[in-house]
């Protein structure tokens, strides 16, 4: 779960990591109120879950009440990488002497957290790192030991941080580790961490991503889960514990298992079809979960045909069939539905669906070809 900058900063602040003064606003009246409170020039920052906000004009400096109003309205009318800006963060403008990049992220290949740091913060660190491997300090953290002070010092040395700031830096990075550890984060990132007024370290930006599998044990974080910021269908999918990714096409897909789902999408592409989504209902899905998945697909108006490909293992095909029947009856769906059932209880499942007018496919290749054909037919 990615969370917005202002939410991440709220957590930073709980962990004692210094951030600029400021608050979130949803309109110019509130923004102006914050500006009056702060008694300083302010930076207005679009709150969207994507990078590149600065380049898109979503981060602006305002020096007067008029500018605050004008820029707030401007930013709140923008979309950045397709995401409409619904909230802004109004913060005191901070003098920047030097910018650093600092992060604790997860190296999934090695199964360890990694401390990263660079003296080239504030700009596109990925590009800089690509060109110059020495630009990035990176050190694995032993999961059972946790981040050690000496590792933080190694980072401070690598990014050539002035020595009088080492102590504050150690506090910030150890707190960042505590935040990562105690909140089941996948990634916590400060870019840039700045030196301001010669001797203060401040986190100007904040990114926090929480492991979806661990959200159940952080009920206090659920308030940060902002439905408005998510795609409606992705939100529904998450709610039902399904894995859903929106794509560009018109064939709605529902498959059990991520590997089989990817294989199905690949085969669709090979056959000239265009999937509308990736949807993995996971292992052992019951009728209800199947129904939820199908409802999400039906929400998508671009969908012209539905492809259901199930190979029952831990999942039972009769359960799947029941889920499909329930939804189809309830929603009066008239779309063509191609169904392929194999494995555990597949004959029972097929028997249930027999009289329902679905297009039954023998195997995955067959299912894909029938779906592609149907997707190129007339509109609904």
């Amino acid at each position, binding site marked *: 779960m990615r969370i917005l900058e202002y939410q991440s900063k709220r957590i930073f602040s709980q962990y004692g990591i210094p951030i600029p003064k400021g608050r979130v606003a949803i309109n110019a009246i509130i923004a102006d109120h914050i500006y009056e409170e702060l008694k300083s020039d302010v930076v207005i920052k679009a709150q969207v879950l994507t990078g590149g906000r600065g380049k898109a004009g979503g981060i602006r400096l305002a020096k007067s009440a008029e500018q605050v109003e004008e820029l707030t309205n401007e930013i709140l009318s923008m979309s950045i990488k397709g995401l409409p800006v619904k909230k802004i963060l109004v913060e005191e403008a901070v003098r920047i002497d030097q910018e650093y990049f600092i992060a604790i992220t997860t190296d999934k290949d090695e199964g360890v957290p990694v401390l990263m740091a660079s003296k080239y913060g504030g700009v596109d660190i990925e590009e800089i790192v690509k060109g110059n491997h020495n630009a990035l300090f990176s050190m694995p953290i032993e999961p059972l030991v946790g981040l050690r002070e000496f590792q933080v010092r190694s980072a401070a040395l690598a990014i050539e941080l002035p020595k009088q700031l080492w102590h504050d830096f150690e506090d910030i990075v150890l707190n960042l580790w505590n935040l990562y550890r105690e909140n089941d984060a996948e990634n916590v990132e400060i870019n840039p961490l700045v030196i301001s007024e010669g001797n203060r370290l401040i986190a100007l930006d904040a990114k926090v991503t929480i492991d979806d599998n661990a959200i159940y044990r952080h009920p206090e974080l659920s308030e940060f889960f902002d439905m408005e910021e998510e795609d409606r269908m992705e939100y529904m999918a998450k709610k039902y514990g399904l894995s859903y990714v929106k794509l560009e096409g018109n064939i709605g897909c529902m498959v059990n298992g991520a590997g089989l789902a990817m294989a199905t999408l690949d085969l669709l592409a090979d056959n000239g079809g265009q999937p509308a989504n990736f949807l993995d209902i996971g292992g*052992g899905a019951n009728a209800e979960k199947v129904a939820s998945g199908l409802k999400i697909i039906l929400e998508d108006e671009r969908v012209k045909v539905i492809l259901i490909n199930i190979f029952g293992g831990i999942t039972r095909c009769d359960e799947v069939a029941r889920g499909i029947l329930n939804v189809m009856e309830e929603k009066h769906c008239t779309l063509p539905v191609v169904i392929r059932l194999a494995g555990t209880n597949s004959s029972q499942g097929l028997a249930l669906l027999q009289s329902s007018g679905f297009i039954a496919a023998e195997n995955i*290749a067959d299912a894909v070809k029938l779906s592609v054909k149907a997707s190129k037919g007339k509109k609904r």
Partner: protein
Amino acid sequence: MSILVRSDIPVLVQGITGKEGTFHAQKMQGYGTRIVAGVTPGKGGDWVLDEKIPVFDTVRTAIEATGAEASVIFVPADRAADAMFEAIDAGLQFIFCVTEGIPMQDMMRVKRYLATSDTQLVGPNSPGLLSPGKVKLGIIPGEIAQPGNIGVISRSGTLTYEIVNEIRKAGGGVSTCIGIGGDPILGMGFVELLEMFEDDPETEKILMVGEIGGRFEEDAVKFISQHVTKPTYAFIVGKSAPEGRRMGHAGAIIEKRAGSAAYKIDLIKNAGIRLASSIEEIPALLLKS
């Protein structure tokens, strides 16, 4: 014989009294696997599977009473890490963890603890192991495969069933089929299993089914080039998948090392490993040669 485990290995099931645990313990037993015990905290003293299999409160007491050497784990995600810690601590030789959705930081810690032990872990989020006609640990449907000379290793569950089933329909058979699990942080990877297949007299060809993300396939290709003499085949899914979402710059920097399908496919081709471009192709490719 199967790779990894012998056919008559005594097996306990952690989470045996849950819906999935019971269902699959029965299926395993029906396939001929020697299920000797179940473990469900608080249910010690119960009997399951036609009242023939005893349930214990802890793995240690189960081992003491039954001599179990391997465990298959069906415990829910919030308790699965603890189940693995318990199985490792009790000194089991093998753990097959079927559970999916285990928090990542839990799994990091399990993996480090595992490294201090002699236990071998398959999974989590693994369908387990099936050696047709011999033994089954996990959830791979028994009827989809027949005995044969093809060793199959995969990161997927259902995709593997699909492939093995197609092989069977085309008349081919499998020596051992094993899923390492769909999660990013896993116990055994491809490499350890490739080594076992290379040494397994019943395996004559090896099929590796990979995915986008992670470094498993890259490591495997290196190992195959250097150490595997048996004909090896590969299939990679995710060609049409959109780029994964970033966790910020740091995530992108780390992920860069991991591979897209195209990158992996290139590696495989360059290493001279035979690549199937679709599921349909697989049986013909494997059986003609």
